[in-house]
């Protein structure tokens, strides 16, 4: 298993790509500051970042530096925290300011899906889990639902494992399968972007490997932003990596560059394990 994922590494590294700041960006974060307490203290400070489309971008950094917070800004999940507030800057996705007055958070989230740290399928059948997003979107046609469920499960590399028990409870699956089910559930609504917040932190190494493999495959179709605390994971799955420290973006570069040749002292300290 591990050998298989490691074999992917050179592929990413050797890919010929234009320089990072030349790429067409999917998400543009411009001088963003964010506060959880009405603006008294900023959790995120002046972050400027352009995330390219159809690639895997990893967020790394020590615990509490604001990776999840930034991720949750991207699909406005932070709206749920009443006291939260964007204190400065903006985020645009596909050129549209997502905190602008013309944007509905509900519609936004249909385009920006999210996979959580702790896998959280609903206590329903596998089928119902995957079709959930389409159903609440108003899709009633059984045939189209069936197709979407199969397509999503195939994309999430779960189809062969569950095709015979689509109607049994999702909670009967193993942890790794449940997380891939959550990914399938997210894919089913066909978002442009998938946000993943430490998707493997609750999984064992074998399941982790499977999910990582899946992530690299999905990058063809989706823009993926993944938060991880594992640097090896970042180096295995991502094209680009952003390193945060205490709410600030320290460095953003091609993953290979960042790990082999960090330009900042803090980055170097972190990836060499001197702190964090």
């Amino acid at each position, binding site marked *: 298993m591990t050998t298989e994922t490691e074999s992917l590494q050179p592929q990413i590294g050797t890919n010929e790509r234009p320089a990072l700041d030349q790429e067409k960006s999917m998400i543009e974060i411009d001088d963003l500051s964010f506060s959880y307490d009405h603006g008294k203290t900023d959790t995120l400070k002046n972050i400027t970042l352009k995330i390219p489309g159809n690639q895997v971008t990893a967020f790394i950094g020590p615990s509490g530096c604001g990776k999840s917070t930034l991720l949750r800004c991207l*699909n406005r*999940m932070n709206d*749920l925290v*009443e006291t939260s507030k964007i204190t400065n800057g903006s985020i645009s996705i596909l050129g549209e300011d997502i905190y602008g007055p013309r944007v509905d958070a*509900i*519609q936004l*989230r*249909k385009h920006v*899906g*999210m996979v*959580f740290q*702790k896998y*959280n*399928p*609903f*206590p329903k059948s596998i089928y119902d889990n995957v079709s*959930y*997003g389409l*159903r*609440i*979107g108003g899709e009633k046609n059984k045939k189209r639902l069936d197709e979407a469920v199969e397509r999503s499960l195939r994309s999430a590399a779960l189809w062969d494992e569950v095709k015979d028990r689509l109607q049994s409870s999702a*909670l009967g699956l193993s942890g790794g399968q449940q997380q891939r089910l*959550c990914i399938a*559930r*997210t894919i089913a*609504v066909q978002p442009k972007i998938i946000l993943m917040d430490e998707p493997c932190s609750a999984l064992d190494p074998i399941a982790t490997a499977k999910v990582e493999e899946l992530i690299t495959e999905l990058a063809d179709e989706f823009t993926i932003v993944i938060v991880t605390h594992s640097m090896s994971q970042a180096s295995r799955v991502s094209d680009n990596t952003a390193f945060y420290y205490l709410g600030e973006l320290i460095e953003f570069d091609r993953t290979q560059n960042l790990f082999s040749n960090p330009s900042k002292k803090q980055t170097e300290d972190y990836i060499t394990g001197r702190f964090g």
Partner: protein
Amino acid sequence: MPTPKPQKKNPFEKKKQSLFSKEVLIAIVLVVCTYFILACTFGVFGKIIANGAPVLAQYGTHFLTRSPETLVVTEVAEGENFVLPEDAFEVVELYNPKVEFKNTREGQTDEKTERFKIPAGVHAIPDGWVAELESANKGLYINWKSRNPDVDLVVEVAEDTVLTFDSANWEKFRTPIRDNMRVKRTELFNVKETTHTLVVKAGKTRLSKGVIGALDPTDLIYIIQSVLTDDDAASKLFDVEIPNQQTITVNDNIFNTVIGEGEGKLPTISASTDVLITDRSRVTIAAGHYLVPLTSYFDLKDANPGIQFSVRQGKREGVVMGEFPEDATLELPEALYADFIRENPALPVEHIETLSTPTTTITFDLGEPTDLSMPNTERNQLAIFNPSLKVEKEQSFSYSGGGVKGPLIGTALLVTLCIVVALFIGVSASVYLNEYSGKGKFLKTVRLAMLNLAGVPSIIFGLFGLMLFVIAAPRVTSTPAVNDKFKIPLFPSLSEPSMRKMEAEQILAVDSNTSTADAVIKAKTIGRAKFYKGWTFLSFEGWGTSLLAGGLTLAVMVLPVIITACEESLRAVPMGFREASLALGASKWQSIRTAVLPYAFPGILTASVLGITRVAGETAPIMFTAAVAAKSNSPFEITGEPGIVNATENFFLQSLQALPYHIYTVAGRIPQSEFTEPMQYGATLLFLIVVMGLAGLSVWLRIRARKKLKW
């Protein structure tokens, strides 16, 4: 093994404890208290089960299929050939397991029912017969628009009776009689009536108590300066002020008492005397049914106040113009039908057929004078089937016969309504509190309010319900009560109330130009409860003691329990479900509906079943708001005007029997005796079983929910 050295000290050595050390004493107190509780529990349950189980075993389904009624204990003299319908006999046997019914044998009687047709149209019917027809024909409702004063009425004279008339009236009475009234004797006489006209002097005076008493029925206005008591002698004098000069007319008796020499008599300026002579007839008429014009009937009654005319319904006082919108096929028992035909000769009744239902009867003998106990229904049967029954002595015990069907249904209805309302409000409120509202001051206030509500004693909820729902809740009605607090006019009424409704509910009709205030005053002065002026009001007159008022009172009472439980269940649903659902593009409500409520539901259900258990047992809140001790019809038998609106209104605004209130009645409000005990213990045990069953159900639900939903 080497023997331990004797000088070595055992570090774990047991210390000697005195029997009266603090430790031991405390332990004893704790143990005694615990066992005391246990003993009490066993005592209570034991007594209820020991006394209740035999009752349930003896009465069985009878206890569940009959409503409470009076228990009659009749001492019947020995005799032969007592007859009872089979099912009534079975009940009597059930109630008297120790009595030996000798020589029982089966027989048959035919219960005959006449079926007849009344053609569509408006017919004059005595209102007593309206009631009779409606009670014999379920679902029949005869509407009427007017009363008819110009019709004949059958008066039943039970035995030869001497009637006295003013001669003029007697002629009037006799002329239109169509039935041949059998007059046995007519005696003419005249009465001399003397009246005195007094002019009473104004001013202060002293009157004896006797004089004051005699003046009471006259029109004289006077003010007594001190307090009269019953023990005062008739000759005792009181200071009296007569405010102005007045003229009164008194009869001979009063005149002789109030006028005279000496202290305490009435001071007059002048007195004159008139003598009036009236011709009277004293007539003896034979027993029988007589057809009498309605107006003459009232003369007859007025002139002979001492004589009770045998009137079966007690309210055959008038004839109404009953409306039959279409041909009506009706039924009456044979005997009643005969009376009906005789008493309504003008009604175009068309006989269709005679139905006969054969009934098995049981004939039995009693060897010795026997105490027979039975519900009132069976006692009536006994009287009907045995007209010559000799009863030595009879006792009756209210609410102690029959079963608990009515209270059981009543409780079920109250609880259902309560839980539906409480769940709706409770779930809505807790969803708002838990999912929508911020964590600010408002939330804290609501929580505090709820905490307070939870601590309020149930009797206070009863009073609260009385105040709010029974007396002051709003109703949309075109016939508002005159004594409500205020009413808001809404829109013109669609239809006028029928005359029948106006009579039954004491409604005064005024024309639509009369102001509401004037209508209220007018209705109040002539003692009407409601008024109608062609306008529909939102009237804050309350719902009366009713299912609706009781159900809502109970709902308010369990709300804190339900909301607390709902909130807990909602909080137990992992945040992850909400986030996942929102992240998939669900709106807030979608996410709550599809990813939160379904998983909170088992917890909510468990809580509501616990709520039911609590609510089902409450007496105090329903005492003033819903419960009655006696009710003749089942809650599902809706009487009154047909139509879905009326039926709904009647259903929700009816008062009910309820199991806890019934227990309170039989255990606390009626005199106790050995005959009331079966009902007391039977009802209590049944109630206990119901409540324990519900509690058990909630435990089972919780276990099932835990198994099914794990995350």
